[in-house]
């Protein structure tokens, strides 16, 4: 069990979610779109959670958003030992320009410099086993001082 806890959790694409992961591999952030009622849902669901339609397709997001909230883990717990070497890091809720919210990481920024309202843009990081994770980094639209400590790519 310790070995299980210490290995990084790798997403397992399913029939429902593979469109999301395939797109991420191509550098695209896609959410489910309901053509009946125009709802966007960030996490793949079996039907539109607003109107119940199964007419869902993948829609590419602009990748632009703002930080809605964040937390900075300072220690790991039993279920997340694999993240010990990354501490501290930023977990954030990103409110996409299109509306939905998505939980991800903010990278290239010292954790204590993050703030709610910060403008961010999606980027894509190789995770492991063919999985690419959409993460976010600060982008233009923030003040000069906020951008001062952002790591260049």
């Amino acid at each position, binding site marked *: 069990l310790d070995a299980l806890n210490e290995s990084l959790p790798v997403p397992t694409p399913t029939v429902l979610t593979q469109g999301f992961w395939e797109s991420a591999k191509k550098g695209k952030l896609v959410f489910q779109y309901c053509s009946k009622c125009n709802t966007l849902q960030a996490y793949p669901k079996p039907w539109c959670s607003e109107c119940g339609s199964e007419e869902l397709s993948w829609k590419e997001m602009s990748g632009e958003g703002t930080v809605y909230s964040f937390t900075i883990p300072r220690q790991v717990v039993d279920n997340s030992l694999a993240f010990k070497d990354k501490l501290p890091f930023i977990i954030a809720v990103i409110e996409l320009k299109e509306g939905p*919210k998505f939980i991800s990481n903010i990278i290239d920024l010292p954790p204590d410099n993050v703030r709610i309202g910060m403008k961010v843009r999606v980027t894509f990081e190789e995770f492991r086993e063919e999985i690419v994770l959409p993460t976010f980094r600060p982008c233009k639209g923030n003040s000069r001082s906020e951008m001062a400590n952002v790591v260049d790519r």
Partner: protein
Amino acid sequence: VTWALKGKYAIVGYGETKVDRDRHGKLSIEQYLVKAARLALQSCGLTKKDFDGQGIGLMEPQVVHPMWSAHIIQDLGLHPRVVLRSDHGGAGPGYLLEQAAASIHAGLVDKVLCVGADAPLTYAPQTMAQRLVLDFMRPFGMMGPNSLFGLVAQRYIHLYGVKAEQVAKIPVTQRYHATLNPIAYFDRAITTEDYVNSRVITDPIRLLDCCLPVNGGLAFVVTSAERAMDMTDRPVFLLGSGACFNYRHGDNLAPDVTYMGTVKAGKEAFERAGISQVSDASFVQLYDDYSYAVMIQLEDLGFCKKGEAGNFLEETDISFAGKLPINTGGGQLSSGQAGMAGGFHFMVEAVRQLRQEGDQRQIEGANIGVVSLIGAITQYAGNLINSHVSILGREVA
């Protein structure tokens, strides 16, 4: 229109085991469950046999078991007519109480034994992860409820500003209550400084904001108001009940996560009970997986305006002797969270207070109690999925 169930059903017995943090599992979940059931039955003069052909309400523990109720029925040798099962997490006991009353109201049974037990320290946390969590939360380093509540609390602070010294009132007062509760896990008081200086687990959640997982079991017995008097001279009546599930679709829209379904559940419960929360409640029991959850529920139930819980706490004595007693048993922060059965702590403490059995922490003249429960923080979507509010009273109306 008066609620059909108002004052017609009562809790007549209750039980709460000692808790522990044993990681080696000296006792199994089933053993805690049996101990809790025995205490509840003893408190109202009933035995296991009295529940032949009657109801049993079971709380699902964290370990996955597709037929938990069948397992318990066989393991305990029960012969029930109605089996209720709750997987509503912290909100479970409120839901079980409501369903027990409804089952008796429908004439299916005369009484229901509701029981919850869990031993979360004895098995791996992997057992409770859902696909969504494994695929879309864990890879980003989300560490379960701590991370999710960190995100809620950070937004709360951003919108309303709250001082750590104000938040401290919750863990400090609850710890004081725990010192007056012989079966609470912690028995030493803490100070505001202890809270402020406690280490940050995940910003802005401090160690002393977090509930304490323990192994343990709790139970209560429900019957009709007519039968109640045969079992106890201190029945506690169900006056109102409200629930809200799947409050909002957090990932579709942009809900304000500083509100919970408790707004809706509380309104329904108070309307059914026909009381005004602020003036009529003698005390409140608020599910406290985190300090911030207590603040949000205080606001959602109308005890203060949204965003003003910090000032409210600063100005209000929330001890058992104060103006609005909160979590008089110590809550899960200090008494312990018996895994998925954690919500029972609040129901049982409310019953204890309304029976005037709170000993050193008894609220003087406790007449009406509010039990607000929340559960299922599987996803960051309008906070928690399940909200439940019960209004309990010493008298029928």
